[in-house]
Every structure is written in C-alpha cells, then in structure tokens.
C-alpha cells in the first residue's frame, strides 16, 4: 500500500508535459489547456452579458455579473486614486480567472485524470500509467508566477508612466532612505537600490507563492483524502471541500486586492 500510495500521489502531482525530456521549452499542457478553457469561459460569459446588458429588468446572470463587477469597481475606487483604464479590468480578470482555476480543486481528484486516461488510451493508445493530468492550474507555479510577474511588469509600467523614466530610476536610489547632501546620498544610494530591488522582487514572489501554496496544499489534502477507504472519505472530504470554498474565493480576492494595492503604491509619490 505504501508504495502504491506514493505512486498514486506522485501520479497526481505530475504534469502532462509536451515533451518527456523536460527543459525550459516544455509546456505543461494540462495547466495550459485548463486555464485557457476557463479563461474563455470567463470571457464568453462576461462578454455576452456585457453585450446584452439591459439597463432595465436585468436577468439573474446579469445581476450576478454586475455584483462581481461592482465589487471590483468599489475596491479599485477605494484603493487606487489615480486614473487608469487598465487596473479595473485587470483586477476583474485576476479575480474571476483565479477563482475559476481554484474552483477546479473542488472537482473530484480522480475525475479529470481518469477521463484524460480514458481518452488518451481509447483515441491515442497512450499508456494510462503515463498519462498525467493536473487539473488545478493555480497549483502550478508557472501559472501563478505568470500572473504575478505580469503584475510586477504592470507595477514598473505604472511607476514609469506616473513619474517618468527618470523619476522612477531616481526613486530607486533615493527611497526609502532620504539623505541630505551629496555625500550621504551617494552612501545611501546602494542601500536604497538594494531595498527597492528586494521590494520589487518580494511582491510577485509573495503573490505567486501564496496562491500556489494554498492551492497545492489543498490539492494534496484532497489526494490524501482520496487514499482513505471509500466509505470514510466524506468525513474528511466534505468539511475540507466546504472550507475550501472559502479558501479559493479568499485567495482570488487576496490576489486581486494586493494587485490593486501594489499598483496604487506604484503611482504614488514617495
């Protein structure tokens, strides 16, 4: 059982890769396809609602979408005081996309991998033992870092557009420690620069790892619960799944909020 369990867990934690050799140009096809499908679902639903939005007598779906949009809009308006056309749609995309990706965690852990194995075996003659499918894209560091690094690029972009390239570079060397006089400025410049670099790097790393850690651990616990005898799985599985509804929403919300906060800090003058 022990080796079996290890094998089971290992199997569940292996990505469906585009090549077996590995290396940088390998793609995680499962992460990629699931997140793409979810992204398209998000766009399709939201765009169709936006297209057919009625001012009077909105339907249930429209009201639901409006609630989400309004929530995001309120947060953005409260935190981010400069004018920007990008930040609110960015925040909405982050919230909904991450939420949808996290929701994949609530599917039965074996459902999609078994479907993938059956499809692979039936149509492509693939070996079921070597057909891997990880269904939660946000439990893949690549997905979370892709977003957090994009956010970091936005932070830099917002800083530059708010303060100018020179202003931004100047700030890299003169904040957070302000110095009087030339000598002190020169002494403090490397310290400031180091601080700024750490700050800049810490933001995407903390964003990505927070989401990744939560989703990965959640997934792992679902896998461990799946190792229990079938009759007892629900005792742990149901509470964990219910608790996880909170976690997935909260993580999506936290990622969105921190993005807004970081971007509002980026445009503020020190």
């Amino acid at each position: 059982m022990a080796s079996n369990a290890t094998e089971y867990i290992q199997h569940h934690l292996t990505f469906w890769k585009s090549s077996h050799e590995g290396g940088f140009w390998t793609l995680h096809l499962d992460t990629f396809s699931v997140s793409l499908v979810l992204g398209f679902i998000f766009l399709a639903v939201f765009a169709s609602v936006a297209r057919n939005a009625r001012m009077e007598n909105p339907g249930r779906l429209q009201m639901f979408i409006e609630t989400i949009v309004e929530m995001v809009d309120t947060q953005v308006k409260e935190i981010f005081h400069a004018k920007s056309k990008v930040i609110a749609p960015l925040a909405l995309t982050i919230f909904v996309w991450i939420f949808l990706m996290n929701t994949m965690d609530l599917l039965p852990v074996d459902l999609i991998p078994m479907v993938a194995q059956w499809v692979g075996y039936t149509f492509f003659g693939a070996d079921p033992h070597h057909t891997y499918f990880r269904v939660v894209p946000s439990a893949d560091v690549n997905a979370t870092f892709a977003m957090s690094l994009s956010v970091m690029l936005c932070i830099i972009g917002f800083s530059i557009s708010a303060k100018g390239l020179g202003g931004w570079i100047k700030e890299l060397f003169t904040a957070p420690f302000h110095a009087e006089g030339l000598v002190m400025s020169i002494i403090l410049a490397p310290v400031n620069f180091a601080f700024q670099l750490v700050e800049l790097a810490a933001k995407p790393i903390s964003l990505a790892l927070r989401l990744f850690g939560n989703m990965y651990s959640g997934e792992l616990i679902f896998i461990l619960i799946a190792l229990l005898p079938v009759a007892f799985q629900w005792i742990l599985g149901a509470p964990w799944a219910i608790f996880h509804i909170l976690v997935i929403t909260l993580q999506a919300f936290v990622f969105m909020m921190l993005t807004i906060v970081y971007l509002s800090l980026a445009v503020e003058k020190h």
Partner: protein
Amino acid sequence: MEFNATLLGQAITFAILVWFTMKFVWPPLTNMMDERAKRIADGLAAAERGKQDLEAAEKRVADELRQAKQQATELILAAEKRASQIVDEAKDAARTEGAKLVADAKAQIDQEVLRAKESLREQVASLAVSGAEKILRKEIDAAKHADLLASIKAEF
C-alpha cells in the same frame, strides 16, 4: 516546482484575457451601470420634485378655497346689508307716501269744507235775500235798491 515555457504561455494568455476584458467587458458593463445609477438618481429627484409640486399645489388649493369662502361670506354679508337697506328705504318711501296721501286728503277735505261753506253761505245769503225780498217786496223796489242788495250780498 519547475519553471518552464508554461509561464510564458500563461502570461500571454493572461495578457489576452486582460486586454479582452478591458476592451469588451468592462466598459459596456460599467457604462451601463453608471447610466442606470444616473437614471435612478434622476427618477428619485423627479419624484421628490413631484412631491414638492404636489405639496405646493395642495397649499395653493387650500389658500384659494379659504379665499373663496371668505369672499362668499363677504358677499352674503353685503347682500344682507343691502336687503335690510332696501327694506328700510321701502319703509321710508311708504311712510312719506302715506303722509303725502294723508296731507292730500286733508287738503281736499279742507277744500270741500271750504266749498261747502261757500255754497252754504251763498245759499244762506240767497235765502236771506229771498227772505228779505219777500219781506221787502212790499216796500222796496228791486230796481231802486239794487246797489243796496248787491252790497248786502257781498257782505255775506
């Protein structure tokens, strides 16, 4: 934890999603919602204005009603006053008319009395004359004493 090209793919997907949201999802929805909020605010303002108008109209109606009542009371009072005046005038007129009639009647009576007295006097005079004539016929010639007779007649 292994980083590979998935990261780039995911980043591109993310960028496309954000772009699409920015272009086709966010603006129409928020515009519509803003417009709806504005319309609701307008509606509430209009309702408030309508309420105020109604209140003003009600106040004006009450004012006019009160004024009309007052006018009516005044009219009634004036009419009553006028009526009593007319009655008084009629009474006065009747009184003077009556007095005049009485005076006329009195005057007529006086005249009648005077005329009766005159005729009486004439009759008495002629009786007296005829009496005296009868008495004097024997002694007095009518033609001779005509002057005398006329003067006696005039004395009556």
